[in-house]
């Protein structure tokens, strides 16, 4: 014979589980509504008008290089945060005076695996090698996109972030830009 108090506790637990479950299902459904109503609006990234605005939202510093060749235009034309886990900040920098996209700097705000959305598609990899970057190593690769343009990619990581620099500058310039990246743990 189960005591009345135990039965009441059991009923209480079932009731609260049902209430919380019901509210969770309702919230998940409501969370999907904007995407269903407006599928063209992406909820996977958000663009900002400047680096400071993105930092304010992210509540963290975005690392930017101290060195920029004169032919690159600052501030970035694109400041995007991809809302993944970890989130990825994408800075798109134009070339002077043509205003073509010349450099993409991606940094993940954490060390988890990430697949950035805002990266030019690669049709073939021409070359991959390891290079020295400050006191650590980086992976340098030269890739070709769909239009036949060559892009140089430089991947490295610090204690808390991962970086990807994609540009049409020379390897030396990219290494110099990457080497000038600031940050607390570098």
């Amino acid at each position, binding site marked *: 014979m189960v005591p*009345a*108090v135990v039965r*009441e*506790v059991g009923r*209480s*637990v079932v*009731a*609260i589980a*049902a*209430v*919380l479950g*019901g*509210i*969770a299902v309702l*919230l*998940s459904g*409501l*969370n999907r*509504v*904007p*995407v269903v*109503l*407006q599928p063209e*609006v992406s*909820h*996977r990234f*958000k663009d900002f008008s400047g680096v400071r605005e993105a930092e*304010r*939202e*992210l*509540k963290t510093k975005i690392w930017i290089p101290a060195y920029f060749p004169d032919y690159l235009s600052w501030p970035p034309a694109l400041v995007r*945060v991809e*809302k*993944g*886990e*970890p*989130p990825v900040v994408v800075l798109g920098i134009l070339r002077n005076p043509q205003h073509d996209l010349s450099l993409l700097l991606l940094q993940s*705000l*954490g060390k988890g695996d990430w697949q950035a959305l805002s990266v030019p598609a690669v049709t073939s990899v021409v070359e991959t090698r390891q290079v020295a970057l400050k006191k650590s190593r980086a992976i340098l690769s030269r890739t070709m996109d769909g239009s036949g343009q060559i892009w140089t990619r430089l991947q490295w990581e610090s204690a808390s972030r991962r970086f990807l620099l994609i540009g049409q500058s020379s390897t030396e310039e990219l290494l110099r830009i990457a080497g000038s990246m600031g940050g607390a743990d570098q």
Partner: protein
Amino acid sequence: MILDLYVQMVLHSAVSALGVEALLVLWSVREPAQRWRYRLLALLLPVLTVPAFRLLDPSWGSPAFRAGEALFDSRRWLELRVGGVTGRVAVMAVFATSTLGFFLQEVRPLIRELWQEKSPRRAPAEFPDLASALASWRNISPGESPAIEIIDAEEPMSKCKGGKHAAVVLSSGLLNRVDKKELLSILAHEGAHLRKRDHQYGWALLFLRILHAANPIGLLVFRKLGEENENWCDDLSVAATGDPLSLASALVHVYRGTLTNDQHSLEWYRSGGRALGARAREAVIVARIERLMKPRPAGSSRQLEPWRMGVAGVSLTTLLFRVV
């Protein structure tokens, strides 16, 4: 940032209120004292969780949190555009309307009361039934003898006065309308407010109300909290007098007296707001009378209530962490 905080507070209020109301039904919580405490929880959680989550977890509310861990991301709704209006604009409209409503409904009457000329006082000796009712009250509640103040006003009214000189305030209009038994029920009801120290807690609740000033859900929960408090004092009054009928009949007198005054005013017809207010007041009084007249079904076990309240608080907080 401020808009985000506001939306999070309203959302947390909605989730807490929904959860608490559902639990009150499913757990068969029927005692007004217990129901009042649960509703207070629904008011406290939103003002505590939003700043606590932000302080304890700096990533709470960040884009990564919203994309990965959140069950509900309010920014999706804020960025939604329907018919040229974004969710952000709609929220700002709700904020403005709720703030205006708070000033009109809560702040303006308070200011008017403070600035209003004080009604002249009448001597208790002028009302023989009062002395008799007070004597009966002292018989049923020995040791309780709060001061009585009588204001010269036609509108039937009874309330408690706080501060150092706590007193039950009655209007001459009320004393002229009710009989001895009804008066005893009213005194027992107001005495319950004094015993519960509502006039002291009132300031803390006013502060909480100010924190929820622009929160429409908070306003609704506050209304329910006030109604539950009246039910609570009704029960204490009936427990003392054993006479629910007299209290119900006193409530009818109070309501009819207020309505008659309003109906003679041209303002009552002009103002839809006051008409709505009168209807709402009528609904509350009718509900209180019905409650006093109906037999009470057995509620849940009192023994489990503190445990259940704790479980409800912790569970709702855990859920609210995922609502951003």
